[in-house]
């Protein structure tokens, strides 16, 4: 996000222009688009005066050179290194239930795809009932980034995982420029299990807007690994909303790096408690980047479990923001929640803001949280050096160890998309397009151990 592009244009003007340029509502989301546009026109813009946006200046968006119309399905062939031309791939052969889909925000990701057993496409009538349900349940249906997605997204991926089915899904959104609105809705029936690996990369200036809703039935299990590797002139706004019935299990590992500005909002509600939620986050900033994670976890009933670890690395003039809300109301007795935020501050021009928010109205609960901000531990560095390891190498080892704690929890396919070097190569962020992580549709099996 070069300073030169941050012109005098305000976010208000940018939003106005965007709305004006959008094509008429169409496709399965036409009604949502209409409502989203109205809402977007009426909503106050995110600004530093609002508590939710106190640390993150979205005015930077206004500097983005977006060709919004180009992002809509107006026939313009996408450019960039990503193999957008290839048609969506069906199930991979090696692991039968793995399905890889390309999400580009323009085409129906399921067109021409044969769904493996256990996966079905939601019908229009089901869509009417389900779309937006989890956003409402997690209290974010009127958030500005969500309404922005509503206004722009014309395509969506809406899938049902049948009861007791075990499915592995890969969602790939590579190398786009311009506006890329992605919308995903997943319904996991009772005891369904889904491994979802999702990759978002950018090739140049642009905005990726992701709204993902997942509803987990009783005993269902969702393992979601999100790898979002951006560009300094790219922005990412993502809402990941999860609604959990009792005994369901959500594990979300989100890794983001390299975006000029990114805002991730994992929002989870355990509808009647008694579910398990594991959240892992890693965000890396360098240059002038801003990375912001606002997580929100609410317990609607007793005996819920939360284990949350959020890590941040800030170098250069980067700014990292973490805001972690945990709400334990009276109905949520015997909740067991732990939240830890750990930040590495590597430069004296970088900044870390971290703010846990615990609100508890129940006496029989265990809630612990902690936060640390520091640079690499001098005694650890010294220990490594005293064993003959050069200072630079020692600090690289320690940084790697810091990140690994989150990276190693990514589901295996997503782990391959996210080599550690890619995360911390601060120079790489600023010098031209990032090296392609992986360009082909074939997963590079066996590349990593």
């Amino acid at each position: 996000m070069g300073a030169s592009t941050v012109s005098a244009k305000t976010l208000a003007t940018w939003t106005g222009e965007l709305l004006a340029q959008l094509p008429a509502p169409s496709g399965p989301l036409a009604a949502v688009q209409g409502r989203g546009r109205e809402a977007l026109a009426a909503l106050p813009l995110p600004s530093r005066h609002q508590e939710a946006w106190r640390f993150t200046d979205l005015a930077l968006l206004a500097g983005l050179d977006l060709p919004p119309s180009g992002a809509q399905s107006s026939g313009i062939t996408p450019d960039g290194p990503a193999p957008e031309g290839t048609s969506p791939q069906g199930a991979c052969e090696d692991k039968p239930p793995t399905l890889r889909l390309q999400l580009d925000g323009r085409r129906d990701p399921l067109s021409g795809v044969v769904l493996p057993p256990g996966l079905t496409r939601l019908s229009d009538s089901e869509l009417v009932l389900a779309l937006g349900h989890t956003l409402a349940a997690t209290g974010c249906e009127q958030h500005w980034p969500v309404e922005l997605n509503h206004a722009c997204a014309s395509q969506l991926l809406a899938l049902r995982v049948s009861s007791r089915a075990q499915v592995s899904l890969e969602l790939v959104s590579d190398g786009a420029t311009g506006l890329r609105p992605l919308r995903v809705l997943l319904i996991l029936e009772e005891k369904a299990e889904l491994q979802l690996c999702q990759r978002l990369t950018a090739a140049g200036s642009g905005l990726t807007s992701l709204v993902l809703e997942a509803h987990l039935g009783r005993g269902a299990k969702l393992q979601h690994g999100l790898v979002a590797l951006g560009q300094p002139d790219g922005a990412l706004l993502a809402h990941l909303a999860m609604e959990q019935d009792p005994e369901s299990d959500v594990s979300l590992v989100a890794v983001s790096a390299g975006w000029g500005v990114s805002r991730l909002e994992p929002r989870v509600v355990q509808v009647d408690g008694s579910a398990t939620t594991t959240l892992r986050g890693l965000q890396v900033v360098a240059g002038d980047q801003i990375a912001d994670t606002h997580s929100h976890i609410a317990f609607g009933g007793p005996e819920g479990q939360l284990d949350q670890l959020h890590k941040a690395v800030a170098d250069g003039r980067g700014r990292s923001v973490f805001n972690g809300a945990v709400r334990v109301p009276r109905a949520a007795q015997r909740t067991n929640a732990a939240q830890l935020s750990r930040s590495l501050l590597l430069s004296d021009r970088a900044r870390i803001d971290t703010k846990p928010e615990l609100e508890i109205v129940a006496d029989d609960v265990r809630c612990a949280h902690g936060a640390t901000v520091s640079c690499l531990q001098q005694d650890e560095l010294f220990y490594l050096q005293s064993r003959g390891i050069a200072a630079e190498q020692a600090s690289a080892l320690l940084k790697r160890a810091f990140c690994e704690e989150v990276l190693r929890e990514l589901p295996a396919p997503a782990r391959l998309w996210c080599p550690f070097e890619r995360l911390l190569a601060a120079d790489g962020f600023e010098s031209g397009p990032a090296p392609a992580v992986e360009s082909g549709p074939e997963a590079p099996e066996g590349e990593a151990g």
Partner: protein
Amino acid sequence: MTTAASVGDLVSQPYKYGFVTDIETEKIAKGLSEDVVRLISAKKDEPDFLLQFRLRAYRQWLQMETPDWAALGYPPIDFQNIIYYAAPKQRDKKASLDEVDPKLLETFDKLGIPLSEQKRLTNVAVDAVFDSVSIATTYKEKLAEHGVIFCSISEAVKEHPELIERYLGTVVPSNDNYYSALNSAVFSDGSFVFIPKGVECPMELSTYFRINSGDTGQFERTLIVAEEGASVSYLEGCTAPMFDTNQLHAAVVELVALDDASIKYSTVQNWYAGDEHGVGGIYNFVTKRGHCRGDRSKISWTQVETGSAITWKYPSCVLQGADSVGEFYSVALTNNHQQADTGSKMVHVGPRTRSTIVSKGISAGHSANSYRGLVQIGPKAVGARNYSQCDSMLIGDQAAANTYPYIRSQQPLASVEHEASTCRMSEDQLFYLQSRGIAFEEAVSMMVSGFCRDVFNQLPMEFAAEADKLLALKLEGSVG
């Protein structure tokens, strides 16, 4: 459940200090205007610089809006329905205690703060403030021998105007926030402490605040200055009668510590908290800030907050001097419908500055107890360190405990560490103590003291036992 119910009863002990002293009072008419500000200043016969200070603050206040970010709920305050000056009728501050209205002395006796020569506390000098004015300060002469100034701020304005002009408003600027602006415009009285270079204050200093009038706001102003190498330990206590209306208390406390100076400021706050339905009680909106201006200086806040309908208070330290130290130790107990939003700000500016925050919140009844803190490490605070610990204890399933510890760091060679936990007083723990013959109330009290031990250890000896008793009293009938 049974535990919670009877812990609840334990907390609901009647307020002991709810009586009203029947004494003739001089009050000005309700309401606030520039004329009222001038009138207060004129009544106190103040120098022009102070009138100008007040007027500037008043004009700033007019431009400001009431803060709404705290997790508090209360109806808007009608600032025109408050009396801004009330004083017991007596001509001047008396030269000797014998001339003070015996009713006032009796009031302070009843509060456990005897002022008369025979009965007063040894080794603690007391400034007694009744409504808007200071009525007596003990041990002034003895302190003067050491060069220590301890008097009401009104007296200090007359006798040491140069010190007031030099330091007033330098730690908490009048436009810092809504209530500091209001206080700066209308403050009535409070204490002034000055410890000259190299002096270790020979005794504990203490101010006791008593609100008596029902419709009066209390706006006291405290200023403590410790010069190079000086040290002092200061304690404030406060009570108010029971009225079914809410009274506003908006104080400002400023501390200045120069090189190698140390100030320890302890508070036992027991303003009337309202009844069990949340009717009445004090709105306690206080700005307290210490400025570690000098190298190696140290400011330590200890507070035991049990009173007030609403408490809104963040005793803070600006750690500017190199190697300066800030500390905050807090116990906040809320019951019934009390709301407390309290915590600390530690602003690390200078290199190698260190701070510690230990906060213990106990919520019972329908109360809400929030810890809100800020630890800020500035770009120049190389080698700075902070450690914060915030623990909450919940009693019953209707009380809320919130924790908002905000950290901002801009210095890689600094470390910030925050830990928080929530626990409850468990039935099993209580049963264990009981099964060894320990009475229920005592078991509760042991557990609460144990929970608060890290903070009580910081209080001056005389008051630690007092605080322990106060908590036990507040908790009486609330568990079990």
